[in-house]
Every structure is written in structure tokens, then in C-alpha cells.
């Protein structure tokens, strides 16, 4: 008889032999796809196109790689070939409306990278081949500076910035392709384009990493595919549960019953102000009481963690349905017992990107004779410098509007955030105990340490994703208001 402790909200379908066997048959596959499509329709508006792509990948797994390329480019086409809105209002913006323009820019960028990739592979002992990712990033930064500084004719200006936008979107996918260039059985670059901005979604940070990793986690037998897809269904189910939960939280935290707000008949609301409202309340407005500031901060942090999990789970669930048994992006962050552990659990694929592109290169090169400094510096290079660089380049619209230097200045709050985060994770790696968490007393493992870690990230979240119209002192002013200190 199953014990109460073995209760699972979502059944472990992937461990039931009969279900796994059924999912390998044609009718079983149809059922798996139908169930997933239904779940997906509750999660995203483009569920139909995703479901059709998944159907092709499910019934023709032998052709997974070329089908993935097709699916990714179809998704790109249906999504409007990336967002060029920032350029549309410029004098040369009419170019954006031409049907051939956007796919041409994508093609130019991919072909240019193919040439670079080939050059790097051919000249692996030259300066280009030894540091290809650093060179790529430097080239990208140089291109941004040139595009900003040169007095280009309107049409050329739009064309150059369009290339910058597309290259920026692909930048970290290209970095992974370059990282995997020496790996065994690396697929042809043409097939790797299926993993660049893949149809299952993501951000500028590749989900889940590059082609070498995808090859390792790919389902290679019908049984592996069935297990992988059942895990995808489970993760989507969990995503939907979390979606209900975050809507409930939204009602409880921010609902306005007087305006008729309710969720599933629940009208109860704590009436907590938004984080944005309390943050701005110091500037000429009557400040909120300190306890309301705390409530707003905690509510915003709580919603952010759950919403972020939902976003990542939705992507990985579809990735699993496509036959790649990827780890979740967010995995029980509230169980983290150290600052470094939380970061690993909260945004796994971004952390992996920083580890592979910044941490390892720094660790393998610098301060080899002093182990602690070596580890700390490499961590700071990743969680601090790499993190800030990634987000600075991600906000390309701001760079186009303000220019690279002004954009950097307006980003100073995030620079501070990156410095604190990098230092904290570095110190965490050096000093927090390496003893396995399982060996800690229950209260320490499940309550005390996680609460301390969450308190740190909650406070640090004040500086995360900053409003560029504010300066660092505004954020510190809010930090002080949390403790009922009101600076003049």
C-alpha cells in the first residue's frame, strides 16, 4: 500500500513500464501528442504550430536533426523574423517592411558565422582559433561602436543595425557552436542551426546549451523517446499547476476586489502595492510605511521566482517532447542551502552559459598559483562580468537609442548588482561548507539556510532588472526605507 509520503501531485508516468511501452506505439504516440497539445493550448498561444512540429519529430525520429532545422526556421518565419521595431521609425525604416529584408539579414549573419567557424577550425593554432569566442564578442562590440559612431546614410544605418540585432540574438548560440567545435561527433554547422533560436523557445541564453550537449541528451531509442516525452508531459503539467498558483498569488497580493478582480471566485486581496510603486514613492511622493515596502518586495520576489519557473519549464517541456531529455532550467530554488547553489537552481542554463564562456576560460588562465584567488576571480568573471555583459548586450534597443556609452551609464545599477552577486557567489564557493546538504540537521537544511539564502536574493533583487530612469542612490534610498530610515 503506498504510503502518504509517496503521494505525487503529478504521477511519475515515465516510470510506469506499461505507459512507457504504450507511448512507443503509434496510437500511444498520438495520445501523448494529443495530451501535450491540450496542455500546451492552456499555456501558450502558438500551441498548434508547436504541436504540429512535435508530431513530425515524434513520428520521424530518424530525421530529427533536419526536422529540427525546418521547425526552427518555420517558427522564426511565423514569429516575424525577430523584432526590428526599434528601427522601423527611423528614416530608412521602410527597408524593414520589405518581405526579403529580414530573412536576408538572418541569412547574411548565418553565412558570415559559417565562414568564421570554418576559419577558426582551419586555423586552430592561430590567434583566431585559440580565442574564437573572445574575438567574436570583441567583433560584436566593435560593430556596435562603429554603427553608433559612423555617420551612415539612413538605409545603410538600418541595415547595419539590423545585422547587429540579429547577431546579438545569435551571439551566445554561436559561442556554444564555437565551444563545441572540437567535440567528438559535432554535427555539421548546417544542422546546428536547428539549435540556434530553437522552435521550443528561449531567450538570448541558449536553452539547453549547444549542439554537443544536445547530442548527449538526445533520445536514441524508442524507449528513451517515450520516457523523454512523458517527462515533457509531466513538466508541462507542473507548469500549469504553477500557472494557477501564480494567478492565485497575483489575486492575493495585487487584486482589486472593488474593481471586480477575482480568481476562481476568490476575491480576497492583501492590496499590496507593486514593487515599482514603492520604489518610486520616495521621489516627491509620500513614502509607503516600511512594512508595506517589505510586503511589496517579498510579493514581487515571490511572483518573479514562480513566473520565471513557469517560463523555463514551458520551454524545457517542449524540448523534451522534441526528444531531448534536458534538465529543468529552474529546480527547487527554495531548497538551496548556499548562495552559489541558489543561482545554479534558479537559472541553470544562464549559469551554464557563464560557466562555460567566462568561468572556465578565466580559471584555466589566471592565478594558477593561488587556488583561492583563482576560484574567486573566475567566479567573479562569470557571475559578475559575464552576467553584466550578457544583459548589457541583450538590451540592444537601449544601445541603439542611447548609444553604447550612455547605455552603459544608465546600466550602472545592474553593474553594481553584478559586482555584488559575483562577489557573493565567489565567497560562497570559497567559504560555505562543502558538506553535502543531506548531512545537515533538518532545520538547518530545510529552514535556516534556505531562508538566509532567500533573504539575500530577495534584497539583491531590488537592484536586478533596474529602471534606467533611476540612479543607484534611489535604490539605496529604498533599501533604507525598508528599515524605516528615510534619508533626506
Amino acid at each position, binding site marked *: 500500500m503506498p504510503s502518504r509520503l509517496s503521494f505525487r501531485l503529478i504521477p511519475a508516468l515515465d516510470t510506469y513500464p506499461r505507459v512507457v511501452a504504450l507511448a512507443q506505439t503509434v496510437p500511444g504516440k498520438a495520445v501523448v501528442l494529443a495530451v501535450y497539445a491540450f496542455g500546451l493550448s492552456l499555456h501558450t498561444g502558438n500551441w498548434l504550430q508547436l504541436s504540429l512540429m512535435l508530431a513530425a519529430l515524434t513520428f520521424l525520429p530518424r530525421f530529427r536533426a533536419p526536422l529540427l532545422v525546418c521547425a526552427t526556421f518555420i517558427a522564426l518565419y511565423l514569429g516575424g523574423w525577430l523584432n526590428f521595431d526599434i528601427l522601423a521609425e527611423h528614416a530608412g525604416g521602410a527597408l524593414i517592411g520589405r518581405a526579403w529584408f529580414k530573412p536576408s539579414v538572418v541569412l547574411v549573419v548565418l553565412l558570415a558565422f559559417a565562414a568564421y567557424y570554418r576559419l577558426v577550425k582551419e586555423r586552430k593554432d592561430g590567434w583566431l582559433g*585559440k580565442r574564437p569566442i573572445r574575438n567574436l564578442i570583441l567583433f560584436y562590440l566593435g560593430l556596435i561602436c562603429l554603427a553608433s559612431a559612423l555617420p551612415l546614410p539612413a538605409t545603410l544605418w538600418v541595415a547595419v543595425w539590423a545585422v547587429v540585432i540579429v547577431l546579438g540574438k545569435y551571439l551566445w548560440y554561436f559561442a556554444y557552436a564555437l*565551444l*563545441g567545435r*572540437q*567535440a567528438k561527433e559535432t554535427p555539421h554547422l548546417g544542422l546546428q542551426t536547428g539549435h540556434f533560436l530553437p522552435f521550443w523557445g528561449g531567450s538570448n541564453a541558449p536553452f539547453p546549451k549547444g549542439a*554537443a550537449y544536445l547530442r*548527449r541528451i538526445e533520445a536514441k531509442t524508442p524507449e528513451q523517446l517515450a520516457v523523454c516525452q512523458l517527462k515533457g508531459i509531466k513538466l508541462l503539467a507542473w507548469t500549469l499547476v504553477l500557472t494557477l498558483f501564480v494567478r492565485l498569488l497575483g489575486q492575493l497580493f495585487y487584486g482589486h476586489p472593488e474593481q471586480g478582480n477575482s480568481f476562481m471566485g476568490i476575491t480576497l486581496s492583501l492590496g499590496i502595492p507593486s514593487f515599482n510603486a514603492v520604489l518610486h514613492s520616495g521621489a516627491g511622493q509620500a513614502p509607503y510605511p516600511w512594512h508595506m515596502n517589505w510586503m511589496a518586495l517579498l510579493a514581487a520576489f515571490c511572483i518573479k521566482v514562480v513566473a520565471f519557473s513557469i517560463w523555463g519549464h514551458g520551454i524545457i517541456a517542449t524540448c523534451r517532447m522534441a526528444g531531448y531529455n534536458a534538465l529543468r532550467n529552474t529546480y527547487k530554488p527554495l531548497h538551496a542551502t548556499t548562495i552559489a547553489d541558489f543561482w545554479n537552481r534558479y537559472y541553470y542554463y544562464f549559469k551554464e552559459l557563464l*560557466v*562555460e564562456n567566462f568561468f*572556465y*576560460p578565466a*580559471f*584555466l*588562465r589566471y592565478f*594558477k598559483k593561488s*587556488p583561492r584567488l583563482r*576560484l574567486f576571480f573566475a567566479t567573479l568573471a562569470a557571475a559578475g562580468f559575464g552576467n553584466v555583459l550578457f544583459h548589457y548586450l541583450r538590451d540592444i534597443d537601449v544601445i541603439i537609442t542611447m548609444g553604447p556609452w550612455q547605455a552603459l551609464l544608465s546600466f550602472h545599477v545592474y553593474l553594481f548588482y553584478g559586482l555584488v552577486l559575483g562577489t557573493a557567489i565567489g565567497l560562497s*564557493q570559497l567559504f560555505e561548507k*562543502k558538506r*553535502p546538504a543531506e548531512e545537515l540537521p533538518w532545520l538547518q537544511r530545510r529552514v535556516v539556510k534556505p531562508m538566509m539564502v532567500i533573504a539575500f536574493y530577495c534584497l539583491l533583487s531590488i537592484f536586478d532588472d533596474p529602471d534606467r530612469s533611476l540612479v543607484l542612490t534611489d535604490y539605496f534610498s529604498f533599501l533604507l526605507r525598508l528599515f524605516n530610515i528615510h534619508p533626506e
Partner: protein
Amino acid sequence: MTKKDTLRKFIQSLLAEYGETADFGDDVSLVLSGRLDSLAVLRIVVFLEQEFGLDLADQGFDQHDFDSVTNIMNLIGD
């Protein structure tokens, strides 16, 4: 003692620190299986640098290369 014996001895001691005392085969997964974490991989890197003079700076880094004794031996050569 061969390079492989030296390496196996080091990994055995590392595994013991992580509570794994059972014997292990040359092809047993060390990292992807969860037996060792990324910090342990860094300690293997430092060990290889100090013991065998390995320099990975220009070679790039792939955790998969450190996933088993066989993979590590491929990296350092016989």
C-alpha cells in the same frame, strides 16, 4: 606507478570525500551521474596541471572530458 594508477588513486580519494567508497570502473560516469560536482572537476583540473603539466588554456573546456577515467586519459595521453 603509471599515469592511470596515479589518476585513479586521486579520483578514489576525491570520491571518498563525496561519500563514495565503492570501487569504480574506468568508464563509470563521474560527473554526469552526479557522483562528483563541478568543484570536484576543478580539483581534477588542478591535479592534472600539477601532476602532469596539462594546460587546457588554449584547448577549451568540456566537462564531458572529465566524466570518466577513460575520458581523462584521452585528454592527458598515455
